[in-house]
């Protein structure tokens, strides 16, 4: 339960971090808060040759809001964002479910997105809100929609020489309502099923985590008469599997029931 050996680079600037990624290739890993990476290192599920620490790069520690978007830099810790006034209501609802207070104090939002655990709350919220991931390498910068970023169990569209510089979510819009719920064995455990809903005039967008190998979202009609059928189809499409924590049948049932609850809640709080 101790990490294997690695070199450690304390990057002072973004360019230094990107140069190291370019030079080292797949042997390098970015470390921010380390709350997902350290368990992987301790259990030797990850054995990078070099860790690049980005937490002293001041520009990455900023969360900046415009009228349209909130841009959250790679070094912004979950606890710091949670304390921010006027935070997006869906993020505010989901953040208390991310790990525990003792891990949110160090963990970053972008780190959770990079780790891409299928039951993680931050990737789920990013997908529900149709946010974007800002990827940067020494050669170029690109923006990837959340729907294209999460490709599988801890798999993402990030290339080996890229790092997440920031994530960006749209600001709350008038006429939208939001809700988040999850079910786990105990608070702070990995979600068995997590649901995030965005209700708007044209319908409800529902995102589900913890069932498929990455978070998935669907746009459902506004008329709740169609929800049972649509939720049932969504539940089956996620191809739930039995595991130690829950059966596939139980997960499908949670998608139907919890999904309906968050959709109702989101529709009820449309501003």
């Amino acid at each position, binding site marked *: 339960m101790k990490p294997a050996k690695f070199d450690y680079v304390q990057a002072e600037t973004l360019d230094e971090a990107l140069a190291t990624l370019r030079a080292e290739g797949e042997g390098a890993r970015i470390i921010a808060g380390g709350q997902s990476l350290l368990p992987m290192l301790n*259990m030797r599920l990850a054995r990078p040759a070099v860790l690049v620490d980005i937490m002293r790069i001041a520009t990455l520690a900023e969360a900046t809001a415009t009228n349209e978007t909130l841009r959250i830099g790679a070094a912004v810790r979950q606890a710091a964002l949670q304390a921010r006034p006027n935070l997006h209501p869906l993020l505010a609802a989901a953040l208390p479910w991310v790990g525990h207070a003792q891990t949110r104090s160090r963990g970053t939002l972008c780190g959770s997105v990079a780790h891409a655990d299928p039951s993680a709350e931050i990737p789920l919220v990013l997908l529900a809100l149709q946010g974007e991931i800002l990827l940067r390498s020494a050669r170029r910068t690109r923006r990837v929609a959340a729907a294209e970023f999460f490709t599988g169990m801890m798999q993402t569209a990030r290339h080996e020489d890229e790092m997440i510089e920031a994530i960006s979510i749209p600001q709350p819009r008038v006429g939208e309502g939001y809700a988040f719920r999850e079910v786990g064995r105990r608070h702070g455990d990995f979600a068995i099923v997590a649901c995030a809903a965005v209700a708007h005039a044209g319908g409800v967008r529902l995102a589900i985590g913890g069932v498929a190998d990455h978070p998935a979202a669907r746009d459902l009609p506004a008329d709740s008469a169609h929800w049972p059928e649509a939720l049932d189809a969504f539940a089956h499409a996620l191809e739930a599997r039995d595991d130690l924590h829950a059966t596939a049948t139980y997960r499908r049932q949670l998608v139907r029931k919890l999904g309906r609850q968050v959709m109702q809640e989101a529709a009820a709080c449309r501003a």
Partner: protein
Amino acid sequence: MPRLSATQRHSIRFTLNGAPVQGEAEPRMLLSDFLRHVLGATGTHVGCEHGVCGACTVQIDVSPARACLTLAVQVQGCDIRTVEGLAPAPGRLSILQEAFRRHHALQCGFCTAGILMSLDAFLRAQPNADEAALRDLLSGHLCRCTGYTPIIAAALDAAVRLRDTAHA
């Protein structure tokens, strides 16, 4: 751009319970091991080593955090507090520690150091914390002896006494 070699030990300095400390560690050394094996501060306990049990919780720059999910090199220059720093003087206990003793909030004591560090930080940040908030905080700790009830009782009692002390 400092690059620390995997196979060498590097000087690490931070503040531990108000006093400057220094030691040497490879980049892969966890803060929990650095505290215990390099500095000899064995009050911080090591349980699961993957962030689940909470036994190794310390305060890094005022916030409770897992020492087993932190590399020693990451806390260069930080302010670290551990259970050794809670007592106001030798032979005396803090208000929170006193409450733990009064309410029998520990039995084997393995989880206690971590829980104390979480509660110490939390009660300072939220002096009026209610039972629900305390239970939420304690979800980050595993205790297999007490059933948590006496821990909650101790924390609520300590919260009252800390508020009284602050107003005195």
